């Protein structure tokens, strides 16, 4: 099990039945996420990266469907949402019920997973503790509006881990967070994949997020994968012009700041 891939996508195609019926949103996408590996899926808005994630979770919106290829998790008949694969989204506050406390969310999720509270009284607190909360008990009675974006994202991750999934889909999970919070959440994901052998599909448009966390990178544009490879190779020797353009913009921005006076800026990998 430890060496089984967490996710294998073969020739996936997704089309929309709305408007221009039959328009391909994703064409012949192939991806593989190994156990304990982070695959960075780089792409801009509209590249199809979010649709790919939704297809894995079987959450495609009405009017959009898979029209070719397959999504599977080796060792499983079908990918069970919440148990085998979990997803964390860009806007954490939109994913919580505003009139339910965090404790309430945990209770609901545990019930859905068949883990009743009376036999597992500490599961919620343990999960929150693993997600980096110093005092989990104080978080449970809070409502979502009382928590910051970073706290909510950590709580989302804690909820996602409850079912013990093999795969975590993080769709722009840190895009709305400020830098220090982002570093913390990425560190949490890093820790989880090391301790649990979690496979992570890290969807982002920010190359530095991929640089921080990804083992391998796939570049996506207009619904197609342009190239895939180890993160070092992609950054040092991109094969596709589009990748080169992205990297150029990325380095341009970064190198403006990474001057010799700043010994810290280049290796902020400690998290």
């Amino acid at each position, binding site marked *: 099990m430890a060496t089984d891939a967490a996710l294998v996508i073969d020739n996936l195609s997704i089309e929309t039945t709305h408007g221009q019926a039959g328009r391909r949103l994703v064409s012949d996408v192939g991806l593989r996420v190994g156990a304990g590996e982070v695959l960075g899926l780089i792409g801009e808005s509209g590249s199809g990266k979010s649709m790919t994630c939704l297809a894995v979770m079987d959450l495609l*919106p009405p*009017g959009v469907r898979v029209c070719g290829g397959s999504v599977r998790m080796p060792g499983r008949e079908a990918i069970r949402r919440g148990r085998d694969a979990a997803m964390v989204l860009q806007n954490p506050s939109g994913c919580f019920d505003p009139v339910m406390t965090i404790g309430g969310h945990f209770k609901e999720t545990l019930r859905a997973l068949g883990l009743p509270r009376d036999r597992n009284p500490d599961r919620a607190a343990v999960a929150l503790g693993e997600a980096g909360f110093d005092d989990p008990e104080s978080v449970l009675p809070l409502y979502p509006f009382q928590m910051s974006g970073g706290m909510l994202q950590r709580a989302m991750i804690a909820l996602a881990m409850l079912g013990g999934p093999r795969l975590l889909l993080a769709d722009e999970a840190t895009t709305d967070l400020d830098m220090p919070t982002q570093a913390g959440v990425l560190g949490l994901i890093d820790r989880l994949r090391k301790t649990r052998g979690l496979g992570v599909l890290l969807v982002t448009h920010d190359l530095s997020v991929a640089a921080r966390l990804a083992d391998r990178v796939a570049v996506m544009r207009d619904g197609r994968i342009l190239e895939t490879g180890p993160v070092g190779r992609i950054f040092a020797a991109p094969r596709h012009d589009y990748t080169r353009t992205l990297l150029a913009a990325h380095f341009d921005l970064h190198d403006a700041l990474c001057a010799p006076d700043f010994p810290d800026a280049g290796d902020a990998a400690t998290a």
Partner: protein
Amino acid sequence: MIRFLRRRPLVAPALAVVAFLLAMALFAPQLATDDPDRTDIGRKLAPPSLSEPLGADHLGRSIYSRLVYGSRASLGSVALIMAGILVLSFTVGGASGYLGGAVDGAVMRVCDVVLTFPTFILALFLIGILGTGLTNVVIAIVATHWAWYARMVRGMVLQLRHREHVLAARVAGASAPGLAVRHILPPIAGQMAVLATLDIGHMMLHVSGLSFLGLGVQPPTPEWGVMIGDARQFLRTAPQLILFPGLMIFLSVMAFNVLGDALRDHLDPHLAQEHGHGH
């Protein structure tokens, strides 16, 4: 447009019904076959015939003509009611939401008081004070319903006031009236149109209900609710006296509800997708 209609097969018939009702109300003199108030005891409870398409009522009056003329009272009163409610709620709710602070607080407390009363009971009470008659029915129904609409408008204005495009418009030099007309009213108007259309059926039932109780139009003015009220005693002997006006009310309410739903779906594409196409 065609695609819209195809996806919602009930809309075309609903529009046809509404058009038909409007025509009825506007061209009543041309469409009626007879004077609706002309009694003729000789024809009492006459069954449908060639000269009298729907038969005659217990006073020998033409049912068909009374239905046609009755549309004026039923629809006209509802139109006046909606107009009154919308004007009142937009001004009060809009001002309350925009100005905020103490004004908002005071207005909302007034609305709260009005909203605590069940609408029908409050309407009865007001008619008790004002007296019977269609005008007073209209006033009473406006008075009991404006508060709910005002709350809706105020809520929407509150939300919109802080939206970035309203802030951006302020920075771009828009004056308060300019803001209201270009940036705040249009989104509200759409939503309020949906609510109003969905409520028309409810208002019609209110008017008919109060008329049925004898509190609305006074005899001999035809109105569908009154026609049902008058014909109560003939339920077994001549059910067509109740059937036809009842059918008119039913058709009107259904038509407006269908249109209201379609309008709402049209304005909110996400909702439409979730509910699937058609009804």
